């Protein structure tokens, strides 16, 4: 918990500093000036693909921190795709967990499947401000030892975030001196998660996964940041975000959550020879981690509710003209969730977007 408090302080501090620079940054014509030293002027790179916006790859990842159903909570699966700044689309996420039903070493494990279908969008408000919206619908099930099963489904918690672009990637011109070798992008965001998903306290009882919910029932504050750097067709994305959760009406308070991730990707571009439609494909490799604080019930700490998990991530994203899609698979590398009573097994996300 102390770790999480520290992380929270650091993120708040960083955001505070960024917040104050928002006003200054706006007066700059090109905020890349902030990182001017990195803008090496180099001679000719990728001449054939001048309009190669895909290489300015921003790996925008905002996790849809909706604790619920995201097993031991939110997904560091990420909000995002490579390159396409703005989009509307749908994403399906399936997550598999198992939880120990009982307090003993030989207590049985029960399987839990969390499924989410979400509509998501990244809408430009201005040149530097983007709005991210996620509207999830969850359908979860778990299988008990006595062969009975439980299903819950419904609208989840809607998240709305505003992102401000602190550093925009420079667009390359035709001339060699108008091209930059490294392209940076940094954005920070603040938002809210609304208690639109139903929270049922009964699902929190027993010794099984306390996150078997479609909503936290709470108003939560989301703080997010994404940084990416690209060089030629290679890109590296780093994300960190923090969810401050509050107590819900039923006096249950999910612990704060910190998500982080590093993703490496390479983009291959081509054109459809007949239609001249640009086509790109980007394999992604990365790691994602999640740290959870302790839950509280009626103001009292609930034992064995904190934890952390680190995932490996492998995926591929592709665009064809205005359509983009991707598949991401996450497998746990190490974990310590709920005192060992919950285990993440895998996570799979598939999305299909229309680029705006």
């Amino acid at each position, binding site marked *: 918990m102390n770790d999480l408090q520290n992380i929270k302080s650091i993120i*708040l501090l960083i*955001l*505070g500093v960024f*917040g104050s620079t*928002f*006003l200054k940054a*706006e007066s700059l014509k090109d905020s890349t000036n902030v990182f001017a030293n990195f803008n090496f002027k180099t001679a000719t790179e990728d001449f054939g693909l001048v309009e190669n916006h895909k290489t300015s790859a921003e790996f925008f990842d905002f996790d849809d921190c909706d604790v619920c159903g995201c097993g031991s909570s939110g997904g560091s699966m990420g909000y995002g795709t490579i390159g396409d700044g703005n989009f509307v689309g749908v994403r399906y996420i399936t997550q598999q967990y198992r939880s120990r039903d*009982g*307090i*003993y*070493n*030989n*207590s049985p494990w029960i399987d839990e499947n969390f499924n989410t279908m979400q509509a998501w969008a990244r809408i430009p*408000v*201005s*040149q*530097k*401000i983007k709005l991210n919206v996620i509207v999830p619908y969850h359908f979860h099930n778990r299988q008990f030892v006595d062969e009975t099963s439980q299903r819950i489904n419904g609208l989840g918690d809607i998240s709305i975030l*505003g992102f*401000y672009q602190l550093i925009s990637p420079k667009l390359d011109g035709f001339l060699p001196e108008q091209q930059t070798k490294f392209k940076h992008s940094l954005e920070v965001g*603040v*938002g*809210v998660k609304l208690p639109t998903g139903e929270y049922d*306290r*009964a699902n*929190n*009882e*027993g*010794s099984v996964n306390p996150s078997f919910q479609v909503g936290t029932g709470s108003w939560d*504050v989301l*703080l997010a940041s994404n940084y990416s750097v690209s060089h030629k067709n290679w890109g590296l994305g780093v994300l960190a975000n923090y969810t*401050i959760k*509050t*107590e819900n009406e039923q*006096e249950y308070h999910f612990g704060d959550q910190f998500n982080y991730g590093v993703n490496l990707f390479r983009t291959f571009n081509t054109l459809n020879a007949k239609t001249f439609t640009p086509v790109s494909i980007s394999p992604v490799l990365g790691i994602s981690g999640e740290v959870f604080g302790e839950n509280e*019930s*009626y*103001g*009292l*700490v*609930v*034992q*064995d509710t904190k934890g952390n998990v680190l995932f490996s991530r492998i995926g591929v994203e592709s665009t064809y003209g205005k359509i983009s899609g991707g598949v991401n698979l996450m497998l746990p590398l190490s974990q310590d969730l709920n005192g060992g009573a919950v285990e993440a097994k895998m996570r799979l996300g598939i999305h299909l977007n229309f680029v705006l």
Partner: protein
Amino acid sequence: MNFNYIKTLVILLAISLTACSSDDDAVNNLGGENNVRIEFDAGVNGDALLLGAASYTNSNGESLTINRFNYIVSNFVLIDAEGTEFTYPKDDSYFVISEENELTEVLLENIPADEYVALRFGVGVDQEKYQQGAEGQGDFLQIAEENEMMWSWQAGYKFLNFEGTFTSESITEPTIFQIHMGSHGSSLDNYREVTLQLPTDALVSENLSPVVHMAVDANQVLDGQYKIELSEAAVVMIDEVKSPQISENVSGMFRVDHVHNGENVQH
């Protein structure tokens, strides 16, 4: 135009920095009364106890298969942070816990609202109750008989009835063991009290009815602070040395694993 958006963002940020620090304390105004349920979840050496199923080896080097694990718990007292004690009405405060008969829960009714931090109870039947004679035992006498927790009225209650089979280095054929521990009339008092701190406070109010989930380690009966070897004696009933030792061991087998707070908690 853009400036307005930025202002909105900064305001949002400011809200986020200040909004979420207050923890309102709903616990302070508890009122009314409600039930407290205490679950006795039997285990053996970290595993769930499955009667007659698996065998396990204790630190005495003896391998046991447990077929019966019954005991009496009594005289429940709930204690709050100030040390104020609520004593459950004595006549209603005797219970048999029996794995084989699936009696694994104690329901304490009409507990006054409070935030309880500890629990005290007895293992067995105290002399005061026993002195009330057969008439004074009420329904409990019959319940004890039905669950094999009586020798005879003169000999008294069995506080613990622990049976099964075992093997050891010297006894290689599965052999029946019987550990029956009690007070033996009024000559030997093996009634013991246990006080347990709750890992999370138990909240009782008009609409809050907690469950105290206790882990009970059957291994402690023979393998507690005193080591009782079955190879020495497979049947221990009235033993001036071993019975008191077993009663000490038994009082050490209880631990509160966790507490669920909530209304009508489904466990």
